[in-house]
């Protein structure tokens, strides 16, 4: 769907993107992760053709990115706003028409969206009269009116209350099911784990990680396991297994183990005769991967 090849962008002495290669698959939710100032916004601005890269290329559906793609892309910027003195309906119509949607079609879609988001009563009100949450819904609608193939959401949940966050999350899922590709830029990991299919982690303009969420988690397996067992039954663990932590809670022993993959079979055999409460591999948290990877840089 979208492919970057050797994208490079600098502002004076500051290098915002360092020969970046990336690929976003059609119909997926792609998490673009990185701390503040990593180059996420620079990358997004290049996709939106707000700025041009110094070198490198970007392909949209295997075509070189050009002005004709603008109407196929929807962009919800992190810092976003609307004309305060314009009516909600007019404003949406204006933004839709700038994305080359026919007037009558735009009007139809606006009504539908306002209905879906329960904003019909506000159609003829000035934007400055809306609450922050409502204004954000309007902004969200504005990015979707032209039914983009690629939707770029930059920190979409900042400022949303939990209820609206749920509404937007559902909407994002629905869009994905309908075939929209979504780039989701954020530095907040919780939401990424929930909704992203694949991610790229960038820091200081460099790509550090890229791949499906499952693969990355696989790659960052720590070999740590949690084990809960009756205290009296533990006995001696097989060779090669390290106990990192041990704690007795109400007659049950809680252990944190580290083991190499080849030792797992032996351990399981040993445990099969015991009164076992829990045996689970500790899943790496994206948050930890993020911290670990950016620290290595």
């Amino acid at each position: 769907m979208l492919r970057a090849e050797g994208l490079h962008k600098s502002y004076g002495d500051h290098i915002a993107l360092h020969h970046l290669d990336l690929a976003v698959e059609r119909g997926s939710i792609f998490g673009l992760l990185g701390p503040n100032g990593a180059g996420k916004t620079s990358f997004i601005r290049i996709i939106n053709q707000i700025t041009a890269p110094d070198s490198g290329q970007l392909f949209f559906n295997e075509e070189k990115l050009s002005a004709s793609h603008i109407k196929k892309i929807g962009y919800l910027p992190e810092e976003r706003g609307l004309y305060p003195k314009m009516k909600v309906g007019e404003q949406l119509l204006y933004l839709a028409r700038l994305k080359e949607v026919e007037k009558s079609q735009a009007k139809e879609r606006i009504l539908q969206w306002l209905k879906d988001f329960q904003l019909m009563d506000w159609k003829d009100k000035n934007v400055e009269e809306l609450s922050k949450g409502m204004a954000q819904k309007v902004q969200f609608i504005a990015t979707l009116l032209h039914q983009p193939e690629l939707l770029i959401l930059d920190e979409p949940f900042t400022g949303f209350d939990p209820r609206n966050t749920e509404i937007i999350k559902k909407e994002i899922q629905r869009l994905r099911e309908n075939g929209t590709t979504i780039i989701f830029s954020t530095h907040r990991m919780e939401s990424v784990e929930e909704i992203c299919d694949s991610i790229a982690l960038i820091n200081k303009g460099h790509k550090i990680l890229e791949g499906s969420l499952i693969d990355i988690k696989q790659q960052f397996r720590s070999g740590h396991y949690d084990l809960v067992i009756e205290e009296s039954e533990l006995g001696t663990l097989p060779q090669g297994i390290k106990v990192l932590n041990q704690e007795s809670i109400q007659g049950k022993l809680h252990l944190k183990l580290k083991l190499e993959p080849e030792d797992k079979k032996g351990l399981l055999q040993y445990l099969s005769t015991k009164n076992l409460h829990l045996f689970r591999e500790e899943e790496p948290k994206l948050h930890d991967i993020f911290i670990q990877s950016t620290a290595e840089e």
Partner: protein
Amino acid sequence: MKKIGLIIQREFSTRVRKKSFIILTVLGPILLAAIMFLPAYLASLPTDERIITVLDESILLDFEKGKDEVRLRYLPPDKFDFESAQAFSEAQGDYAFMHIPLSEGGDPDFVARNTRLMRAGDISISVESYLENTLEKYLQKEKLKAAGVDPEIIARTKTKVNLRVINTDEGLETENAAIIKMAIGYVAAFAIYIFIFLYGAQVMRGVIEEKTSRVIEIMVSSVRPFEMMSGKIIGIGLVALLQFTIWISLGILFYIITVQLFIDPQLTAPSLSAGAGANNAVVDGLMADNALLGIYSSLQSIDFFGIIASFIFYFIFGYLLYAALFAAVGSAVDKESDSQQFMLPVSAPLILSLIVIIRALDNPDGDIAFWFSMVPLTSPLVMMARLPFGVAPWELILSMVILLISFVLLTWFAAKIYRIGILMYGKKPTFTELLRWARYKN
């Protein structure tokens, strides 16, 4: 191009629908007239009447009444002496007290040396100079009398001259219309000045509004910055043009009504056809009676079509040139209060032009007028001030071409700053940074 159309439409319609536009359209001409003519009007207003008590022991002044706001009150010298006259003046609350002593042996110079003007406080310069002139006039008369000149002869030889000035430039003897030309030049230049400031500031405010409300972030993903900037400038320019058209129409309506009501059409008809022969003597005689007709016939000697056409040109390109700069200023700052630093270099040429046109109106073909009507940032105002007096076609064309070229270059430069500025927040940039922005590739 379709997108620019949409932007122009938005900028235009949101502004024209505002109450403030309607109010300004109605009150504008009044305000404009007030700004231009109020200082002159205030200066000409009669101030409070100032009574000067005069004890004229020489009976020099012949009971001259005074003029304008100065009135002279004479006290009879047989009933008052210096002290009692001064006390009387103070008791009456008069503005000042003047004592003209009795001259020994009728020597006018003695009076000139010993006349005193007294007031508790400072005396207005106009009052002082009026009294001095009056005294000089009467003392001169006394001296002439002493030299044996008959006062009758003095009165008879007094002559008033109204110089008949004729402009031979156009090959025919048109009435000199310098005053009218000055007025037209001044009004035209001032109108451009006001419009550039008024609507240039609107462009700047519009850009700042888009930045602070962050709507710009959403806009740039659909529209190129240059389209946004030009759409905004053109949209607001159309608002200005609409407003101006309304004002001009009102002006023309006013002119027609004045001509209809106050000038007899039978008189104007022959004066329009050059050399109407037999009637001329009659017409000339009648024309002198009708001051408005004088103005009217002076207006005939001015090339209105050329002036209006040039006005539209300088109005449009002057506005476009400055509006692009105002847009760049707006894009560089986050809030209006930060714009001062950049406003100064942008508005300085405008203010300078306003100063220069005073010279240009007095000497429309002088060096200063010529050069400032060529420099692109000052030419819209200065050339308009010169035009009613007649400007060589090559000068006009050169000035217009220079303005056009600078318009293209400056807009290109402003757009480069704008493009970067609209997405920059935080620290207020310096001039060096602005220049660096202009050099960024994309």
